[in-house]
């Protein structure tokens, strides 16, 4: 049950490049990454693509297929009609290195800016104790495979390069939320989230949630709760006053 598919693949580097047309064999059960590999094997031996697990767990093969940020290995060819033109481009928010490979080091720089887990002083690593219901809310965020599709699709940096300095992006704001919700983390991350990592830039248009291959509810469960926590700390005088009177933090 094979057929010839029409592919249009972006080829080039930081200086320039273009979309190139290919006609390539597709077999039943294949994903887009299989077709890219077939192109490498038969027609474009120097086509650059980053990949690793082929199972949607390593987050390496992020690209844009028909304009939508997706994992190449998790996009089934059966979701397209045989006559469709399938366009594959590199991630458009990051500098391109070559063909489908981009330089995602922006994300690693942002990761390094977030202070690590801060447990209570005097408690050794093996002595952490917490209730399951206290920690399970943030466990959803641990599913992240760091494919950076959310970082790529977020218009705050995708459409505005100049915001990259001030905005950490949804993946790392989610990391801040994860730590802020953690029952043993003692660092106050609310003002940091707003003042240093650019939470206020997020206008909750939910594209990060739409593209997440792990189906993490980034906006509803991480970004909006974090915005509400920031309101507690920065914009709600009643909550601020209550915290001063009752002197209760980390409830």
């Amino acid at each position, binding site marked *: 049950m094979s057929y010839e598919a029409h592919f249009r693949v972006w080829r080039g580097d930081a200086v320039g490049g273009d979309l190139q047309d290919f006609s390539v064999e597709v077999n039943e059960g294949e994903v887009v990454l299989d077709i890219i590999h077939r192109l490498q094997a038969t027609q474009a031996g120097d086509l650059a693509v980053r990949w690793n697990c082929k199972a949607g767990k390593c987050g390496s093969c992020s690209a844009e297929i028909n304009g939508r940020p997706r994992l190449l290995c998790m996009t089934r060819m059966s979701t397209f009609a045989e006559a469709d033109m399938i366009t594959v481009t590199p991630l458009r928010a990051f500098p391109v290195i070559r063909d489908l490979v981009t330089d995602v080091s922006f994300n690693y720089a942002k990761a390094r800016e977030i202070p690590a887990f801060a447990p209570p002083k005097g408690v050794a690593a093996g002595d952490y104790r917490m209730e399951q219901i206290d920690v399970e809310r943030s466990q959803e965020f641990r599913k992240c495979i760091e*494919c950076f599709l959310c970082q790529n699709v977020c218009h705050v940096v995708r459409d505005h390069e100049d915001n990259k300095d001030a905005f950490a992006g949804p993946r790392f704001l989610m990391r801040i939320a994860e730590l802020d919700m953690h029952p043993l983390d003692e660092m106050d991350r609310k003002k940091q989230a707003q003042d240093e990592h650019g939470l206020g830039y997020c206008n909750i248009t939910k594209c990060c949630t739409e593209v997440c291959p792990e189906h993490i509810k980034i906006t509803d469960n991480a970004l909006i709760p974090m915005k509400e*926590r920031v309101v507690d700390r920065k914009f709600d005088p009643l909550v601020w006053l209550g915290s001063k009177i009752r002197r209760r933090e980390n409830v």
Partner: protein
Amino acid sequence: MTTVSATPPLRGEGASTPPAVDGSAPQRAGTDFPGRARINARTLRTDRWWLQPLITVSVLGVFIVYTGVRIFTREYYWVDEYHYLTPLFSPCLSDSCAPGSSHLGTPLPELPFFIPLPFLIFPILAGFRATCYYYRKAYYRSFWLSPPACAVAEPHKAYSGETRFPLIIQNAHRYFFFAASILLLINTYDAALAFFPETGFGFGIGSLILLVNVTLLWGYSLSCHSCRHITGGRLKHFSKHPLRYRAWMLVSRLNARHMQFAWISLISVMATDVYILAVSAGWISDFRFIG
């Protein structure tokens, strides 16, 4: 995932702005920045990504125009015979209100013609919806095109999000939630009153419409993200607050349907108002089941 470059620099060290290979400044809107893949199209999406913003503009546009005109009318918002009061005018608080429509009395004097009767409550209702996390997504995408759809370049050259005035006011959503909840209690009383016309107990189509409408409004309010935060979302230790944890779980389940509640309740408010307008104006008569 492995990185392809050496240890990246931190903030302020040029981590985020790629070098301009052609010497131009990286200030253009869209994804066409130096260093990125040169693709001229603002999007390569082939689906009908424009349909959702179009529907949003259409429905919200109709609602905004309708309510904008409606609040300036001073009649047909109260059916005295059956005790139907439209939610857009509840509570009616001035001496200009129709006799019988002011459940809470009339602390305000006669209002000049250019001040709408619901001039105190309408900003609360509008503010609650305008600062709602779901509606923000909807109108940022559809009215402000920021972005019009995912992976579709927005037309604006600069973007500061909700970091400064006026959009920083969005952070007041919880206060609108509190105020709107008080109005919702009054709406609930209105719906109950619609089952007790002048003749005693009785109800008609209008009573049921008011009941359904207020139920949907409760669904919208209780599924609100601020409500979710207040009930338990702000806690770090659910185990120390079992009741709040249960409440948070319940609100979280509703919260997953917040978008649906937002749309359905918006339409139900308008439909309820249209029905009461039609009955009050005598265009149709209310079908009565009892009384």
